[in-house]
């Protein structure tokens, strides 16, 4: 073979199509913005419509978004949104919910315990591990520094 790993890397870079970043960013902005806007709308509905306290309304809106995302994932629509939205559908909490629901659904054929339940945090697990770890460190630092 006339190429080695380094020279071949240049060939690969030459032929590999670039992701359309500008277009992707545009859609990420629209989809991500829209999901956050929806969160704000939910929050206001919970405050003005249901009389929830300001501090409770945030978590309630999160739960509503998670529920909506779970439903769309079950219907097989969230991955279609994700195709356009990219990070716009990954970064909001709806993306977190999608990453919980999609393996739960995908592995149901291996059973509800060893399939669904075992795999439900397959993708979201790292987020929780690092999130809880970071939170614990933040709490600990607070304890030390006062």
């Amino acid at each position: 073979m006339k190429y080695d790993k380094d020279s071949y890397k240049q060939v690969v870079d030459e032929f590999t199509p670039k992701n359309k970043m500008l277009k992707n960013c545009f859609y990420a902005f629209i989809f991500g913005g829209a999901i956050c806007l929806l969160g704000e709308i939910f929050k206001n509905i919970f405050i003005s419509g249901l009389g929830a306290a300001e501090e409770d309304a945030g978590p309630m809106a999160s739960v509503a978004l998670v529920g909506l995302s779970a439903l769309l994932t079950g219907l097989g629509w969230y991955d279609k949104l994700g195709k356009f939205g990219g990070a716009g559908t990954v970064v909001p909490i709806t993306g977190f919910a999608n990453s919980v629901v999609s393996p739960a659904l995908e592995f149901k054929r291996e059973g509800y315990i060893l399939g669904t339940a075992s795999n439900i945090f397959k993708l979201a697990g790292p987020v929780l591990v690092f999130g809880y770890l970071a939170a614990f460190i933040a709490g600990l630092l607070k304890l030390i520094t006062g």
Partner: protein
Amino acid sequence: MNYIMSFVVGGIICVIGQIIIDTFKKNNAYLLVLMVVTGAALGYFGIYDKLVEIGYSGATVPLLGFGNTLAKGAMEEAASKGFMGALSGGVIKTAPGVAAALMFGYIVAVVFNPKSNK
């Protein structure tokens, strides 16, 4: 105004995520971990709350906000309950969202079937 700022700030955070995806071409799990840890760090230094004041849900709905909530929860509880607070504070604050994802996820898995995306 809340609505516009939610849209804009949320959109910008997602654009940052998109740039990371397209540049590093890594599994999305890396992005999500990065987001939640960054959020916790910004939360620890009290920076993220300023963003929430500007962006409302635009700052709380993305995973950065999840990290922020985690860190703030742990810090508040640590201040009042000490070590045990540091351990449980973040988990308690974010429990509704995580539990909801788990419950809804399980229910959806029972009710629906995986679909071919063609």
